């Protein structure tokens, strides 16, 4: 095992190298770009034995990923923001065709106004597509999650594409000490990809991506829903097994000091590191506060969240996205599934800094709510 001081983008690229996909169609976009560059260099140096396709757009990146995955090989691609929006139609197709593609998304705001900085609107906009979505907190988790993503996506009870989300710049361009696992250990953990269904083989011809009329369409959609629900257990099991082998365990959620908490903040991604110190500060002042990090946003781990929040009176839900008109996506999911006093804080859109003062405001307004949905850090005019 080696420790390298690297960005999450490099951590993702290292994990991809270790997971050994055979085809890698990528199109560069800020802040994902260095992933595409690292992978190109690995292939150029012979460190990754893969077909790297220099596609002419993100739309073609995901389309070529489907072609390659449909032809029975392990695939990786990565994108961000406008690129993910351009992929949108094909993102749905990938899930509908049940292809275990792994894609990293460097979370970035979407246009207009055009903005290259971080929020999570891009991946949230894909939440209904049938992909698994895992949100990472740091470089180590980004690396570990890519490796796990292949095990999850390729599981026979799942067979769904998986999106690994990492906050643009906060993670993609920030270096942290990161353990690089040994290659043979990853080999035996991820295993060789042997597709259950070999679609595009002239010796066993099958048609993939056919027309389904009203007689068949609903069942196809139902099966995706079922597979996504199946993935709850698989994500937990894989995270546990990863912990046994590599010493870092992962789950659907990560509760911090929630056991005796009266109120809990809920969030996804890199902000959770900051929130943990906020919780520590307030705990020192005698406040019974906790943090619930959501790692798996799709499937939405309702039971795990309920269990973590049993006894909690109120929650402050921090969204780096907005479903305009109704508040953040995470907030609305919690409202739909849990009977709890929930307050929503819209933060950090388009990379707006989230200051210590903002954190205090979030804590204060969770304890003493003024309204259901509050935008934090808006400039007074």
């Amino acid at each position, binding site marked *: 095992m080696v420790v390298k001081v690297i960005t999450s983008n490099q951590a993702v690229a290292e994990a991809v190298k270790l997971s050994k996909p055979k085809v890698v169609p990528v199109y560069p976009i800020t802040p994902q770009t260095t992933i595409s560059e690292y992978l190109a260099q690995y292939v150029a140096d012979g460190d990754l034995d*893969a077909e790297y396709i220099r596609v002419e757009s993100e*739309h073609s990146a995901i389309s070529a990923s489907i072609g390659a995955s449909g032809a029975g*090989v392990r695939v990786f691609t990565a994108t961000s923001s406008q690129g993910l929006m351009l992929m949108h139609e094909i993102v749905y197709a990938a899930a509908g065709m049940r292809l275990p593609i792994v894609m990293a998304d460097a979370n970035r705001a979407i246009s207009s106004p055009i903005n290259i900085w971080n929020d999570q609107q891009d991946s949230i906009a894909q939440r209904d597509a049938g992909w698994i979505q895992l949100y990472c907190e740091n470089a180590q988790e980004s690396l570990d999650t890519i490796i796990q993503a292949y095990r999850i996506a390729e599981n026979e009870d799942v067979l769904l594409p998986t999106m690994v989300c990492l906050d643009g710049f906060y993670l993609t361009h920030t270096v942290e000490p990161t353990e690089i696992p040994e290659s043979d250990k990853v080999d035996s953990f991820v295993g060789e990809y042997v597709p259950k269904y070999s679609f595009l083989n*002239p010796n066993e*011809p099958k048609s993939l991506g*056919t027309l389904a009329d009203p007689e*068949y369409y609903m069942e196809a959609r139902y099966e995706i829903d079922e597979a996504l629900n199946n993935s709850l257990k698989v994500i937990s099991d894989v995270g546990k097994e990863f912990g046994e082998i590599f010493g870092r365990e992962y789950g659907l959620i990560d509760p911090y000091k929630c056991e005796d908490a009266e109120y809990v903040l809920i969030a996804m991604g890199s902000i959770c590191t900051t929130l943990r110190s906020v919780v520590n500060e307030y705990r020192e002042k005698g406040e019974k506060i906790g943090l619930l990090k959501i790692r798996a946003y799709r499937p939405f781990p309702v039971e795990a969240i309920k269990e973590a929040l049993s006894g909690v009176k109120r929650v402050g839900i921090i969204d780096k996205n907005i479903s305009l008109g109704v508040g953040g996506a995470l907030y609305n999911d919690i409202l739909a599934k849990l009977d709890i006093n929930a307050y929503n804080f819209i933060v950090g859109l388009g990379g707006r800094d989230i200051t210590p003062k903002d954190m205090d405001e979030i804590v204060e307004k969770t304890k003493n709510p003024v309204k259901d949905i509050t935008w934090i850090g808006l400039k007074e005019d």
Partner: protein
Amino acid sequence: MELPEEELFAPGHRGCAGCGATIGIRLALKALGKNTIAISATGCLEVISTPYPETAWEIPWIHVAFENAGAVASGVERAMKAQGMEDVNIIAVGGDGGTTDIGLQSLSGAMERGHNLIYLCYDNEAYMNTGIQRSSSTPFGASTTTSPAGKKSFGEDKPKKNMPLIMAAHGIPYVATASISYPEDFMKKVKKASEIDGPAYIHLNQPCTTGWGYSPSKTIELGRLAVETGFWSLYEIENGEFKLTYKPQSRKPVTEFLNVQKRFKHLTDGDKAKIQEYIDQQAAELGI
């Protein structure tokens, strides 16, 4: 030329009586044989051939969307290479809408990157799957539902996009035009495309009984008339070298082709003369 009896595009599909696209794919697959993977763009051919749980394809086949056959084919081709199965023929198939309009970027990327695959455009000169809307491959003067003839319109007012030349400008090793009514010429070109290392593009003219407006029994005849009048030409561009593969002995007047189709029936003699002039000019350029 050898014409295998085995059908790799099975009968029983949902194509219209007299469908030209299905004749085209049937011939192409006879030329390619079983060791082939097909990639379809959304369109007539995809819709009529794969209503789940049925399929007309006796070879592996994949469809993803309307505009990305070139990119999907790129992924398939590289996956085959990664598995040491480079001997498999890869053929992407799109209609004129999926090729010359919405799929042009994806196709251009695939051609420019040099994937070893064949792209076959079956050109019926409008969006026939959705009911005869104009594409950039619709010829001058044709009435479609979105370029209708009317009091102030004689139908489509732009000439057909020259897709084969756009493909040739990519510097790919093989570009050809073909017609379903000249099966031997077409199949030879498909065979040649499969033997060439690198991208190949074949633009196949195929009459469409519903879109062009003629009796289903006349499909082959219409395809012949298109070529005999010079409305469509058969050639190939191999490593930059242009060669006519068929030259009509004497070109028939284009009215023989136009007058038997509903899409041109509104045209005045003056309009037809303009079309004839355009065809004469093209024929001179091609050496017909």
